[in-house]
């Protein structure tokens, strides 16, 4: 086999250029989603809740239990009646809102052995009184269908407390873990990497949510929360792998200034590109088959995951790394400014370099001055300082791929 090359290391394409362009896509997605939610929220009678597609778990609803044994005797055909009752119930509507049955379950009473069918559906109107009437109608309809009196049918309104607890504890857990992950990345990498990684993480969750809203048929329920938590814990990996490469490429430049962060970010993305694609592919492979073969309920869980995986792939390359480069530049600039303000001259800091900084500040943005002044070899450093002074703003210390091969210290 020839093998798919997918080798991006030689590609002339620069991921770091026009990084603002990459941010357009997520921003557009978010804006469109807001428009969709607001637009649908105004038109749908269910309001914003319907627009987002909150499931019964978080909304509460009604639970109707029909004692089939009491109505139809002991040899009742459960499946047949369960189906009939479901169809009957779903005929009801308030305005444009039809009842949609969320769960149908079979109950076998442990004491008297009665078989019941239990169906749950989300309230289709916010008005309690109206919903109670609706439930009464449902009760009467089922009684008529079964040809019995209404005593075999009971309904209750189900609260969403448990699901809300789940949501709040999941939110709390995600909040705490994001904070801890941030601390870990700051310790193992740099402060800027930590911030960039966390922003990418937030991007993933937000985009995933937006895209699920677009899908329209995915309810926000407990398994959605599980999907979101999965993405939170997974998507950080992509960013970490790229940042690991960045960390490695940055190693020779330790303590230096005016580093070409853009080029380093670009190189890190390219050299890990094959891995990013392959891993996203293998992860998607399993989830994809589940979504296709697993039926509705599996789809509800897998589609958000697929969306989240794609968002995670995008953010690690187009959000996290450019963000890291941009923030590194501004951080360095801020440091310079502070230094200049205080008038402190550090050992590695030379006059020529300062003039470069000044020229950089007034010069065009894309004329980033990439000077590398090392402190490792004092003798060659002296020479470079001299050169730098001579060349002043006209000299660019070009970032080269060659420099970035990490060499083991002897």
């Amino acid at each position, binding site marked *: 086999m020839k*093998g798919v090359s997918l080798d991006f290391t030689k590609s002339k394409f620069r991921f770091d250029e026009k990084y603002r362009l990459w941010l357009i896509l997520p921003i557009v997605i978010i804006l469109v989603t807001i428009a969709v939610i607001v637009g649908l929220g105004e038109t749908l009678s269910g309001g914003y809740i319907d627009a987002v597609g909150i499931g019964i778990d978080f909304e509460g609803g009604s*639970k109707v239990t029909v004692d089939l044994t009491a109505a139809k005797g002991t040899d009742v055909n459960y499946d047949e009646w369960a189906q009939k009752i479901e169809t009957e119930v779903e005929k009801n509507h308030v305005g444009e809102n039809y009842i949609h049955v969320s769960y149908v*379950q*079979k*109950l*076998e*009473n*442990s*004491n008297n052995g009665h078989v019941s069918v239990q169906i749950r559906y989300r309230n289709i109107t916010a008005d309690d009184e109206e919903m109670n009437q609706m439930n009464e109608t449902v009760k009467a309809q089922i009684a008529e269908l079964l040809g019995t009196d209404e005593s075999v049918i009971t*309904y*209750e*309104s*189900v609260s969403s*407390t*448990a699901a809300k*607890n789940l949501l*709040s*504890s999941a939110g709390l*857990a995600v909040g*705490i*873990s994001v904070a801890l992950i941030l601390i*870990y990345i700051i310790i193992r990498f740099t402060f800027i990497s930590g911030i960039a990684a966390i922003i990418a993480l937030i991007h993933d969750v937000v985009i995933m949510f937006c895209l699920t809203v677009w899908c329209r048929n995915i309810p926000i329920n*407990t*398994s959605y929360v*599980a999907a979101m938590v*999965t993405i939170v*814990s997974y998507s*950080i*990996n992509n960013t*970490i*792998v790229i940042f690991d*490469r960045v960390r490695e490429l940055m190693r*020779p430049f330790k303590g230096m200034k005016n580093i070409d962060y853009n080029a380093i970010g670009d190189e890190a993305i390219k050299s890990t590109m094959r*891995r990013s694609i*392959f*891993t996203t592919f*293998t*992860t998607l*492979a*399993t*989830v994809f*088959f*589940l979504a296709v*073969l*697993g*039926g509705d*309920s*599996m789809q509800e*869980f897998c589609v958000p*995951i697929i969306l989240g995986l794609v968002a995670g792939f995008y953010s690690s390359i187009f959000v996290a790394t450019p963000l890291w480069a941009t923030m590194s530049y501004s951080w360095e600039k801020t440091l310079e400014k502070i230094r200049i303000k205080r008038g402190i001259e550090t050992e590695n800091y030379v006059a020529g370099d300062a003039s470069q900084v000044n020229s950089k500040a007034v010069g065009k943005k894309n004329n980033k001055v990439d000077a590398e002044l*090392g402190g490792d070899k004092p003798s060659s450093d002296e020479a470079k300082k001299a*050169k730098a002074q001579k060349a002043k703003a*006209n*000299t*660019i210390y*070009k970032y080269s791929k*060659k*420099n*970035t091969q990490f*060499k083991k210290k002897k």
Partner: protein
Amino acid sequence: MSKTKSIVVLSIICVFIALMIVFAVVDFPIGKSVYDYHGYAKTISLGMDLSGGIEAVYRVTDDGIGNLDQRINGTVSSLQSLLIDKGYTEASVTTSENGGVHYITVQVPNVDDPERLLNLIGRPASLEFRSAQSTDKSEYEVLISGKEHLDNAYVSVDNNNQYVIALQFNAAGTKKFAEVTKEYLNKSIYIYVNDAFYTAVNVQSEIADGRAIISNNSGYSYEEANEFATKLQSGTFGVDLTVYSQSLISATLGQDVIKWALIAGACGIGVILIFMVLMYRLLGVAADIALLIYITLLLWFCAVLPWVQLTLAGIAGILLSIGMAVDANVIIFERIRDEFKISSKSIQTSIKTGFKRSTGAIIDGNVTTIIGSVVLWIVGSATSTSIVGFAVTLFIGIILSMFTALVVTRLILKCFVPLNSTNEKLYGLKRGKIEEQEEEKSEAPAIELETSEVDA
């Protein structure tokens, strides 16, 4: 490693995988005993949505003290933590209301005799420490009451290796208990359970840490102690619960879902296995073997650990984690490829350095996920049930994937190298162009100067 040694190791690994797969699905009777062995993959307990379970509905009896909604919510959280304590991580607790009567519904997947537990909840035990041995309200003073002062009750073991019930008082209870033990030093206080005299205790010292134990002269059996502790715990609920109905409840999703999930899983895994071999040749074979070990170990852990009750989300999570497990291998192999390409290193050295240089990325990536899962585990067990199972599955998945990638894959590759250490194609490796190798070789300082004209 010598050739023979590596063949032996590889054979052992293959036999291990074969045995793990067989033991996963095959059932057989064990010797002459009455027990049968069941394939461990079949004994993985399933959550409510896949297997159904037991539903118990409790009627809330309002005794009219304080805000009812608040107390019901408090009871729901207490019930949840009680259920997690007992290992029912996929249980759900919901409240409902009909005509002013409140109900609390508990659904537990059909595992490990939940009926007994649900019955116990409906028979709460009220614990009281009284000042005198009497059931006439005018004759005694309630010093401590379970409902107000008790935070938790659990089974513990005392110095004589007897089962005892350990009591943990809440903040108010701790304070009260300290006062009581001070006041009644060297006097007796009387413990009543459900208004019946249980035992008299002679206070020997002042207890300020809010802990106490209840022991029995003849000793409890574990079951007795466990039952008593559970009843005491239900006695701390803010509202009284009485069993209203108890039923077996069917799965919310059909049996078909499991079947299709397994088929989808098989397809996904098949695609991954083939993909790895196509992309990385012999390295891919090593990854595939490691992946099979990962899958069987993961299933085994899911079967033996009590917190894992697989739900739909759990199955998808496992399949996802299989995709993730490959990730570590991909990172390593990409690194090996790079090492080989840009240098004149031998295959063996490339593999060695590849592993070394990718370990950092793998560990950092996984530690962040481990942090996430541990936080979920801790937060989940305090507040919500269904998160815990997910967190546990995720945690096992990550630890295992690190283990298989960093240990198993490396071992297998170490075995492959002595068998063939020269055939680049077999390993899917390729040298880069000469100048690229030169770059690596040159030990010149890592700084290159280029001058170009820039308009100032």
